C-alpha cells in the first residue's frame, strides 16, 4: 500500500484530551491514508470513542491538532467537518425515531447536496435525491422497511440505517464506531457485507471489539491502550506482537 505522505487524508498530531485529572487521550499521532481500511482496537477504556469524538468535533482536544486533507480542522464545528468529507456512525444508534428510513436517508442525501435548507419544495421533489435514496435503500437492505417508523424497526435494520446515514454523505473518511455491536447473529452478516462493500476510495476507520470483523476487514491496525498508541502495523504484525497479546490476555485474566 502506498505510504506516500501526500496520500494522508486524516491526521492527528500529538492529540491530548484530559477530563479533570484523567488523561483519556495521551499524545496520539495517527495518519489515515486514502482508501485505508484502518482498525482502531484496544481494551475498554482505551480512549477509542474519545478519540473519534475529537476527530468529528463532538468534543474539543486539550492539546494537539486534527488535520483533514492537510487542513487544520481542530476548532471546526462538527457539521462543517461533514461538509469537508468526514462522516461517522455511533456505537449507540443515533437515529430519527419518528422518521422513516427513507426520509432519514433523503435528509442525509439532501444535506450532502446542500439542499436541506430548501423550505418550499417537498422532500422527494428532487429526482436526483430520490434516485440516491433508492440506491441506498438497496445497498443497506432496507427496501422492505423503508416506509416504517425507524423506532419500530428490528435492531439489525436500525444498525444498517446507522451506517447508511453516514454513507449517504459520500464521505472521504468514514469513522465506524463498533458497527456490529449488539447485532444478533442472524442479522450480523448484513452488517459485515455492507461494511465490506464500502467504496474503495473511501478511507474507513473502524473501531470494533469483534476480532473476526477486525481481522477480515483491516489492512492496518492501531492498538490504543490507556489513551496512548501502543503499536501500529499490519494485522499479521499486530497478531504476532507479544505486547498486544499481553494487553488482551491481561484483560481476559481480569475477567472482563
Amino acid at each position, binding site marked *: 500500500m502506498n505510504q506516500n505522505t501526500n496520500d494522508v487524508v486524516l491526521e492527528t498530531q500529538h492529540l491530548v484530551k484530559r477530563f479533570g485529572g484523567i488523561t483519556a487521550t495521551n499524545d496520539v499521532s495517527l495518519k489515515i491514508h486514502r482508501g485505508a481500511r484502518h482498525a482502531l482496537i484496544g481494551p475498554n477504556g482505551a480512549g477509542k470513542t474519545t478519540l473519534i469524538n475529537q476527530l468529528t468535533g463532538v468534543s474539543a482536544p486539550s492539546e494537539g491538532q486534527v488535520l483533514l486533507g492537510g487542513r487544520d480542522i481542530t476548532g471546526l464545528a462538527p457539521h462543517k467537518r461533514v461538509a469537508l468529507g468526514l462522516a461517522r456512525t455511533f456505537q449507540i444508534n443515533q437515529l430519527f425515531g419518528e422518521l422513516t428510513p427513507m426520509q432519514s436517508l433523503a435528509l442525509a442525501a439532501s444535506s450532502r447536496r446542500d439542499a436541506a435548507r430548501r423550505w418550499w419544495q417537498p422532500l*422527494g421533489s428532487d429526482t436526483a435525491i430520490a434516485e440516491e435514496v433508492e440506491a441506498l435503500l438497496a445497498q443497506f437492505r432496507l427496501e422492505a422497511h423503508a416506509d416504517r417508523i425507524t423506532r419500530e424497526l428490528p435492531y439489525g435494520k436500525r444498525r444498517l440505517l446507522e451506517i447508511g446515514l453516514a454513507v449517504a454523505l459520500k464521505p472521504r473518511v468514514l469513522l465506524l464506531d463498533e458497527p456490529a455491536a449488539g447485532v444478533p447473529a442472524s442479522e450480523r452478516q448484513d452488517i459485515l457485507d455492507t461494511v465490506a462493500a464500502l467504496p474503495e476510495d473511501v478511507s474507513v476507520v473502524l473501531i470494533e471489539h469483534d476480532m473476526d470483523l477486525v481481522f477480515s476487514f483491516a489492512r492496518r491496525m492501531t492498538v490504543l491502550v490507556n489513551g496512548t498508541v501502543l503499536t501500529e502495523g499490519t494485522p499479521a504484525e499486530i497478531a504476532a506482537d507479544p505486547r498486544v497479546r499481553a494487553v488482551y490476555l491481561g484483560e481476559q485474566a481480569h475477567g472482563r
Partner: protein
Amino acid sequence: MNSPTPSVAQRLLAPARWRAWEIAAWALIWAAPIALPQHAALINEIVILALFALSLDVILGYAGIVSLGHAAFFGLGAYGAALFAKHVMPDPLVGLAVGTLLGGLLGALTSPMIVRGTDLTRLMVTMGVALVLLELANKFDDITGGADGLQGVLIGPLLGHFEFDLGARVASFYSLAVLFLAFLLLRRLVRSPLGVSLQALRDNRLRVMVLGLSVNGRLAAVYTLGAALAGAAGALLAQTTGFASLDVLEFHRSADVMTALIIGGTGWLWGGLVGAIAFKVLHDLLSAITPQYWTFWIGLILVVLMLVGRERLLSPRRWFGRRA
C-alpha cells in the same frame, strides 16, 4: 402484483398531498362565519387562538422547543399593532405586518438563549422573557396604558373597503384568511427538506449535527418563525377588538395556548386548530354549566389526556386491551 410499487420519489411526496378530509375541513371552517353569523366574535377568538397554537406547534411540535412564555411574542404583536394604528396609520394589513415583524424580531433576539440548555432552562428562560415584557408594559404605562389598557385604538377598513363591524363578521373573515395563509405556508414548510430536518432535530440533535446540518441555525430560524406567527396572532386580537391590555402578556396566555395545543395534539398542523376549537367550545360549555369551576374540568382533561395518551383515548377498543 397489478399495481407497481410506487417509486421512492412518489412515496416521499405522498405525505405532502392534500387529503380529501383536509379540503372538506377547510371548507367547513370557511363556512362557519357564514353559517353562524351570530357567533362571529367567538369564531374570531377561536381562529386567533388557533393561529397562536399553530405558532407554538411550529416550535414545540416540530422542533421540540418547550416554551411557557409564548405570550411574549403574542403580546408584543398586539401592542405593536395597536400602537401602530394609534400613532402611525390605521391600515390593518400594515399593522399586521408590523406585529408579525416585531414578534419575529423578538424571537430572533431571544433565540440564542433557547438554542442551548435543557428543557427546564428553556421553560424558565421563555417564561422569564414574557414576565420581563409584562412588567415593562406595566411600567411604561404612558405608552401602553398600563393596567387600564390601551384605549382609543381605531382600525381602518380592511383593504380600504370593509369596515370592522360590531358583529365581528369582517374580523372573523380577516383572521380566518390569515390563519389559512399561515397554515398553507407551514404545510409547505413541514414537508420540505428543512421541515423534515426540524423533525429530525426533535428526535436526535447529535445526528442532525453529524449529518452536516447546523442545529443552532435551525433552532433560531424556527423559533423566529414561531415568534413571528405568534406576533401575527397578537396583532389580529388587538385589531379585531380595538384594544390591547396587559392581559395579552399574562402568564395564563402562554399556559392556555399550550393547553389548547396539547388537547389538539402537537406535531401535526391540525393540532392547533382542533385544540383551539376544543378549548374554546369546552370553555363556553363548561362555563355555562359551572361558571366558577371550568378550570377544574380543563385541568382534569389535561391530566387524563397526558396519563392515558391521545391514541388510547380516541380508540375505545383499546381501552381494555394491552398497552400498545
